[in-house]
């Protein structure tokens, strides 16, 4: 454990799902800000707040989808990203190689899977 709580940015189209994730992460000792629901905002917040890890949904409202937003954030700021998706994870993993995500996690997986990925991202 570091002296500082790791900061996680949750980008999730379904606000209820996002909030649930945020609470879960907070209960496990992470700092989670406001849940972001669109790609542009995600890129902006990521630039401003510089979280330690970003939990990024693929299907987003707005002009940028999750993958594009992730690619920008990765290019601009080099923040590790965990892809959080409702789609076929194995197929998606192949498509997002250039983003070099820490993990690709299914939304239907247990929360433990998400936590394991976040932990790996922050290097704890």
């Amino acid at each position, binding site marked *: 454990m570091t002296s500082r709580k790791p900061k996680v940015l949750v980008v999730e189209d*379904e606000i*209820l*799902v996002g*909030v*649930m*994730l945020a*609470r*879960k992460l907070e*209960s496990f000792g992470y700092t989670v800000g406001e849940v972001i629901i669109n790609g542009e905002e995600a890129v902006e917040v990521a630039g401003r707040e510089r979280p330690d890890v970003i939990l990024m949904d693929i299907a987003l409202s707005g002009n940028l989808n999750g993958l594009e937003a992730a690619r920008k954030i990765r290019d601009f700021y080099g923040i590790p990203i965990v892809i959080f998706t*409702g*789609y*076929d994870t194995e*197929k998606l993993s192949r498509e997002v190689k250039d983003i070099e995500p820490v993990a690709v996690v*299914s*939304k*239907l*997986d*247990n*929360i*433990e*899977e998400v936590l394991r990925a976040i932990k790996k991202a922050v290097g704890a």
Partner: protein
Amino acid sequence: MPFALGTTDCMTKILKENLGAKLFLMLTAVVILAVVPITWSSLHTLSDYGDRALEIHSDHITHQTLSSLQIIAREKASHYQNHFDRIAASAAMLGSQATAIYNDLNLYAGTPLYHNDLFRSSLTGNYINDLKAPVTTVYWGDSQISQPVREELRALTHMTPLFRRVLTENPEVLASHSITTSGIGLYCTEREHYKKAASEIPPSSVFDLRDGEPMTIFTASEERTENVRWTNVYKDDVVDGFMLTASAPIYDDTGQFRGITGIDIPLTDVVDDILTPDNDGDEKWLLFSFLLDSDGRVIAFPEKYFALFGIEHFPSKYRYSSDRLTLLLGQSQSGKVRNLTTSLLEEKEQQRIVTLEGENYYVVTSRMPKHQWIFGVVARQSDMLETVTAGRDELDQTIGKLAIRSVVFSLATIGISIVIIFLLIKHLITPLRRLSLATQQVTAGNLDVHCPVTTNDEPGTLAASFNSMVIELRAAQKQQQTYFGYLEEEVAKRSEEVLLQKRELEKTVTRLEDEIERRQIVSEALHLSRQKYRDTIESSLAGVYIVEDFKLSYVNSSFAEKLFHTSKMTLIGKNPLELVIPEERGKVEANIKLRQQGVNIPPYVLECLRPDGTRFFGEVWSKATTWKDKKVVVGTITDVTGLRQKELKLQEQGEELQKSLQEKEVLLREIHHRTKNNMLIIISMLELQRMELDGEQQRTIFQEMENRIRSMALVHEKLYTAQNLNRIDMGSYLNDIARSLLSSMVIDSTIDLDLRAEPISIDIDHAVPIGLVANEIITNAIKHAFPKGRSGTITVTAKRSDNNHLHLIIADNGIGLPEDIDILATSSFGTGIIIAGLVKMQLKGEIEVERDRGTTYHIRFLDPILHKRL
């Protein structure tokens, strides 16, 4: 005719075969050829002589005839001249008497012979005397009779005796008369009506006798003449027929012309005399006589010869007989007659021969010395030569007799010659014939012949030679007979062989006939079959064609008419590539070449081009074959334009359907996605709710509920990520459920998952209950089978069992269920309702629990693919 032919043939045969006949015929011909020309020649000479004699005789007769005719003509002319001279003499006598009276007029006036009282005629106004007076007297010189005239009248009574004497002496004279210059007319005639006519002469105002002939003959010229003068022939007013007047002048003592005195004679007597043929004496062969005046006018000419002499003559137009004087021989229609007339008028005497209408006529003339009239006689030459013809006939008879005599003589000569020839030949030929008969007998096979030798000449020698030859032949015959025996045997042998060969030949012929019959049947069958093929092909709806050397050599009616809308004739011989649209030609050409190389090409569709420019899709089935060492392509073509269009339409519809299907798939995927998302939201809400709960049991309930929903959501996720939106793989699904449960619920122990699943796909209707059941059983196992950190394995098996059932086995090797708990009977939500209820009610399956070394659940249900819930 056949008989005649037969006779001729027979004769020819005899001639060919009989030397005697030949010789006889030849010699007879020689005799006939010698005798006949001599006879003919002598007859001809005789006939020639007769002709010559006749000719000479004829010339002689012609000459004599002409001389005789000339004499006749001369005599006749002279005779008629004499007749006129006699009258002229009387006229001269009258003239001298009247001249004497005027020379002594006072004397004669003082002694008149009778009283001649004149009175004025009430009819004519002239002075006339009584008709009973001897001489009819008329005065027309003045209205009153002057003294000198009275004296003249009295003096002229002295003329009366002479007037009467003239009449008495010349019976043919019609009247004697006198006309004075003072206007006195005296007319003496025996005929009462002439007297009357004379007394009724017209008044001087109408006609003055002094102005006409015969007065004018003398008054016309100043020259004094005392000769008698003749008037021209004229037609008198009172007398019918031609008249002629001989007049003499009257002079008084002072020499002054006082009048004329004359004699009227009719020409009738002369004309009748000329025209009446004299059938006696020398003149009987005269044809006719004629008389012309000095100018050629016709005075006498028989009318029946007018036509012959070309004289145009219209008797109906003649009002007076003098009109006849208008006929001139010189105006004849016949040129010969005109020429003749010209020469007659020139010469005193003429002898002419004229040919008219094919016959010769002698025309001989002589002029009357004073009147210069022409008297002519005409005779027909043939009449003249009658005597000559008679002579000719006699001569012909004589010649005929001579001819008969010479012919008889000739025939006799020929006959005797023939008999002599016949006998001679017979004598020569008989030995030869005998020899010939003998030869014929020898030829017939009789060798016992002997020919008698009667003479020593050539036939005799020949007979002797013949006899010796017959003897030799007899010897030869004997030898021949021996040889014949052998020959007959040989012939019999050969005949047998030939018979055998013939039988063989007959057999062969029979076989050949059978073969021919068989071939005929085959040929007929072939013909019928060919006909059937042809009919089939012709009636085929498909177009049938044959290509040889890239040329159409055959097409059927469907090909030409139905497919290409043209006639067969326009297509035969065409390059098939012309019938294909340009874009397809390369392909078709390649195909034809490939087929000819024997490559089999499946039927294909191409776009064809009709001669009229329209197009259609044709399906081509064809095959290459070899006919008489020639590669040909035989094929059919069917119009598939309709099919092609339907196909295209179907393709379009299919594409649309596919598109619609894809849209639906996308939609379905989206629905599954949303459903899963919604379920995820539910899970998130339950999780948020759970975080606020304090009681462990409640939190577990929430946790389990979340797990159940997740297992349902997993179905939707599987469906939208899978290829097939209806079905998911049962093994993969169970794996996901199990792993998810293990990762969330197992904290302090190690539980392995052993999945043994056959590839079984299930639909959503079965996936959800199967998922919920598996979720419940695995959850139970995790919760109860491995207490206090006990390790173990959960085995999930999915397989097909018999009877089309699926068999799901979920087993743990944990502590097992307590014996007293009937897990399926519990009314708890988890086991009782979910597991038992879903399996029995929804899957129509069976569940069985095994409690041996852990707990094993056996769930069996019908394979949903075979048992689809409706």
